[in-house]
């Protein structure tokens, strides 16, 4: 099994872009603001004229934890794993995982870059690794 995000009308574009290898965040053309997770309107100007903007995939680790005790059987074979909040170069933060280095090597402020990991036929999760 896998633990996968449910689609909603609001969030489906995020996951569809991810499946195509693009990391996107919502963006307001009116006030040039980006945010994540998705909202039905711009939190700055209340414009409903929001779209999706591809971001560079570059970011830095805002915080992280090395999970050594799984709280779901799905993760029992995966510990230790790193859960992180990554701050994108474009501003918004997202929850993700860090791979590509030993868990103990992850640091707050570490530069990372997105990559895409398919978990089912429909779902691809953006992960990050050191850059």
């Amino acid at each position, binding site marked *: 099994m896998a633990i996968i995000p449910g689609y909603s009308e609001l969030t489906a574009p995020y996951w569809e872009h991810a499946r195509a290898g693009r990391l996107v965040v919502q963006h307001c053309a009116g006030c040039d603001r980006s945010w994540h997770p998705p909202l039905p309107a711009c939190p700055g100007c209340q414009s409903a004229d929001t779209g999706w903007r591809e971001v560079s995939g570059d970011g830095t680790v805002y915080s*992280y*934890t090395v*999970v*050594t005790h799984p709280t779901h059987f799905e993760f*029992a074979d995966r510990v230790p*794993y790193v*859960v992180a909040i990554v701050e994108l170069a474009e501003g918004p933060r997202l929850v993700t995982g860090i791979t590509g280095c030993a868990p103990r090597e992850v640091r707050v402020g570490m530069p990372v870059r997105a990559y895409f990991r398919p978990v089912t036929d429909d779902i691809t999760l953006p992960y990050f690794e050191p850059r």
Partner: protein
Amino acid sequence: MIRRRVAVTGIGQTEFAKALPGTAWQLALEAVNAALADAGLEPADVDGMCRFAPPFEQVSEPMLVRALGIRELAFFAEAPLGGEALGAVIAHASAAIACGLASVVVCYRAISQSRGGRFGRADRGGPSATGPDDATPDLVVPEDDNRSFAWPYGLMSPGQLFALWATRYMAVHGLTDEDLAQALGTVAITQRGYANRNPAAMMRDRKLDWESYRAARMIATPLRLFDLCLENDGACAVVLTSAEVAASLRADPVYVLSATQSLSPYREPMGIYTDDLIELFPPAAADRLFGQAGVSRGDVDVAELYDATSFMTLKSLESYGFVPDGRGWRYLTETGIGPDSPLPVNTHGGHLSEGYLHGMNGLTEAVRQLRGTACNQVAGAEMALVGAPSGSAMILAR
């Protein structure tokens, strides 16, 4: 303002244990009846109720009205967001009493984690409660409260979230692993010491020393086993009335000076996306809490702070303004929160060592402290702060 117009007239609680024979419904009844008896009131006197909203609280007002034989509720309300409902239920109940919507209001919280819904096990009691199997279907996380952006990465429990907070705190304030271990270990060991002298505490017979604390396994770095709260069954209830009614019923009423709630963007359970991740309690809400009470930080004699993890005790000291921002860890290490410290904290053992009741057991403990009947009595305690995260708290005084 609430200031002394409302009082906690009765408190009640069940035993706290890993698994109790009763259902949450039965536990709630036991706690409410105990609180009413403590107040010198009957179920028939109750005309108001305020509870933690579902999905957290499973026992509804109709279930209690039926089972207690209450004639009629004139006021009932629910506060959402888990532990953050703690200050809110007292604020709502107090407001209802102060403006005459009700005269005897019961607030309660009943938890039966042994029968499913463990906070620390996302696979027990949730949609995938059946366990692992080749045929186990994928778990599709619904898009509510942004969980679908977190669970697929294995961020599923409050303990993991607060690990993210603690890591961020270390980075912002320049702590080493050892600095944090000293601070958090002080919280865990001090609270365990209180619990060892509290017959109601689940950990009353289990000692905790530095060697055991350090040797405990990591759960999610930098948090070790003893940095995380207990999971258990149990219930707590309080009865609120007007100050006049309280004074007619008992010689030692405990007055509500202020009670607050607060909501700002992403400042909610699993609120991962706040501008400042580690701002546990908005400064404006803390100022409102003290301002409405008309007291200052130095007036508080004892604090019962919401400790889903030891880190929350640390950060709460800063967020309520007892210690300057970024100094909580050093304060803990140098001054501490023990019986002889300037501000004893979590004198019942807290969620870490007494039991986990979404802060309601901190409230019953604060009332005992102000009545002078606590196991770890703070001499001459006249004022207490009971705190939950995110702007939810209360100040009580005798």
